């Protein structure tokens, strides 16, 4: 039976976790709710939606791939050799209180970086070192549409522990062995149990707050719909306002495009990988001057088609969690739901 942890005991649990893990938890900073390192003296905020997703915990915005260093040979100073060095250690982390849509985002990136084909060793290490304590969503926002794309505000497959707000506390459901390891017995033994039906009732509440689902499934039919719409003039109309700012990709829990750049300092330096955005014209610009996606409508079409068509074809999943951040943050007010609704027929 799940335990019920009252609000005022959460800090005890977090302090306990922080002894062995880097604990990342939503908190207010400069007027925004962000996910950041837990510090006992700072207030946490489990009520608001974080501005950006939790993907940075497994796929940091900038990450070193390796360091390099040029050295002269001792015996033959004219002979210079380069040495490469990688790091193997990544911190053990807990993502605490992240919403189901962000857990889904991490699951989706896993499908790309660590399933078939080439595997990304940097992502893999960080994912293995990450434990997830998800928090069922209590206040879906206007832009939320997780149910449309097959998600749920209150279930979080891929998480190790699921918290559900019940009364003045949280029901704690342990989902995996990794999650069990995050439970300090001396704290939890003293907690009261909560009835499973009560948890279920609380979980159903959030779903009712979401718009009636327009279900889009990761089917071949969905994938085909966007391929068919590839030459549609609607793309121009729908994306005319787009500024190519790229905020939709940075805030997105599933966007995983990156660039690789060298940073040099004298005879040494490092090769970094950094988030990139398919919204930027330079993203596909070739040295010859040719650019296969020169027009903004072509870039936007690629972003939507990647999530709602290409990822179905390549990974059998939809590349969208319905978190709504791209809609909420778009300075031009572009609403992905309108485009998807127009171009993809309802499957059920």
């Amino acid at each position: 039976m799940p335990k019920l942890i009252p609000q005022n005991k959460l800090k005890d649990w977090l302090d306990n976790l922080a002894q062995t893990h880097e604990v990342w938890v939503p908190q207010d900073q400069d007027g925004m709710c962000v996910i950041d390192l837990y510090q006992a003296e700072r207030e946490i905020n489990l009520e608001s939606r974080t501005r950006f997703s939790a993907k940075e915990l497994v796929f940091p915005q900038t990450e070193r791939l390796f360091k390099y260093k040029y050295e002269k040979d001792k015996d033959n100073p004219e002979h210079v050799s380069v040495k490469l060095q990688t790091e193997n250690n990544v911190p053990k982390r807990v993502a605490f209180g992240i919403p189901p849509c962000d857990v889904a985002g991490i699951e989706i990136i896993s499908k790309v970086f660590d399933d078939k084909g080439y595997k990304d060793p940097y992502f893999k290490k960080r994912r293995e070192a990450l434990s997830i304590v998800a928090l069922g969503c209590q206040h879906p926002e206007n832009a939320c549409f997780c149910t449309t794309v097959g998600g749920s505000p209150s279930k979080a497959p891929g998480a190790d522990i699921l918290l559900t707000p019940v009364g003045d506390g949280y029901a704690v459901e342990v989902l995996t062995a990794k999650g069990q390891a995050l439970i300090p017995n001396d704290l939890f033994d003293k907690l009261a149990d909560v009835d499973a039906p009560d948890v279920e009732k609380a979980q159903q509440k959030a779903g009712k707050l979401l718009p009636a689902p327009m279900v889009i499934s990761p089917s071949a039919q969905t994938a085909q719909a966007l391929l068919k719409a590839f030459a549609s003039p609607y793309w121009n109309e729908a994306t005319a306002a787009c500024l190519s700012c790229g905020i939709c990709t940075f805030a997105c829990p599933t966007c995983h495009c990156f660039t690789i750049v060298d940073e040099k300092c004298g005879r040494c330096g490092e090769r970094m990988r950094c988030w990139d955005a398919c919204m930027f014209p330079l993203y596909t610009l070739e040295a010859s001057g040719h650019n296969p996606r020169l027009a903004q409508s072509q870039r936007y079409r690629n972003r939507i088609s990647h999530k709602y068509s290409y990822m179905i074809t390549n990974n059998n999943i939809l590349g969208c969690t319905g978190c709504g951040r791209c809609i909420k943050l778009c300075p031009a007010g572009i609403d992905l739901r309108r485009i998807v609704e127009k171009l993809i027929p309802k499957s059920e």
Partner: protein
Amino acid sequence: MCDCAKKHKYQGPDDNPYLPYLARVISVTLETPNIKSFQVVLDDKEKMSQFSFEPGQVAQLSLFGVGESTFVINSAPHTKDYLQFTIMRAGEVTSAFHDLSVGAQIGIRAPLGNWFPCQEMEGRNIVFVGGGLGLAPLRTLILHMLAHREKYKDIHIIYGSRTPNDLCYSKDLADWQRRGDIHVTLTIDREVPGWEYKVGFVPVVVGEAKLNPENAVAITCGPPIMIKFVLIELEKAGFKPEQIYTTLERRMKCGLGLCGRCNIGPKYVCIDGPVFTFAQLKALPDEL
């Protein structure tokens, strides 16, 4: 199914496909005023002797502190003592490569991508159509076929560039012209005193060649505008889209199908390509 795909996939040191192997430049050849060929040898002698790839596969070459770019391996697969790359000075990385001298150390992640299905081409007539630096990916396949000449029927190489000075691999071209068992047609865009071969754009020369599509395969690579019109001429001659191969270029970073930028619809040029038939390209969204 053979296990080629596994054999010709880049693993990387410590199973990290982002980590390059180190290599040194052993020779630099000036092909044209802005194109140089580099022969490189892996530092690890054992790795070098075991290195295997198929014609058409590419490499990510890096200069540490400058960056990485994608180039096709254009030496023959049976050449075991070096790998050759031909680089046109265009951007930051290629310019830095042009400044390298013999002995310089580089990083190399290879082989990456798919390749020309040369086994399927056995027993068939082969037409190569190249323009400028587009001969680079064809060169590997040509050298491979010449080394196994008896397995292929007629081989016809049509190659052109703007001026005689822009023709790459002049030594190879002379060798191929001397051979009696293949047909080589060279062309330049405009007449130049002393030029004794054809004059005219490559597609026009392809049209004039009266190619026979029966039991034939055409492989073309060059500037996109040349490919576009070569394709029209080949189709006019009766070649079907599945008989025509090309190899594509795209801006790439990872070469592993992960970083996202080189896609044409759902296909990534770095892992699903760079070699495609025109039948395959026709099935993809028009995003070249």
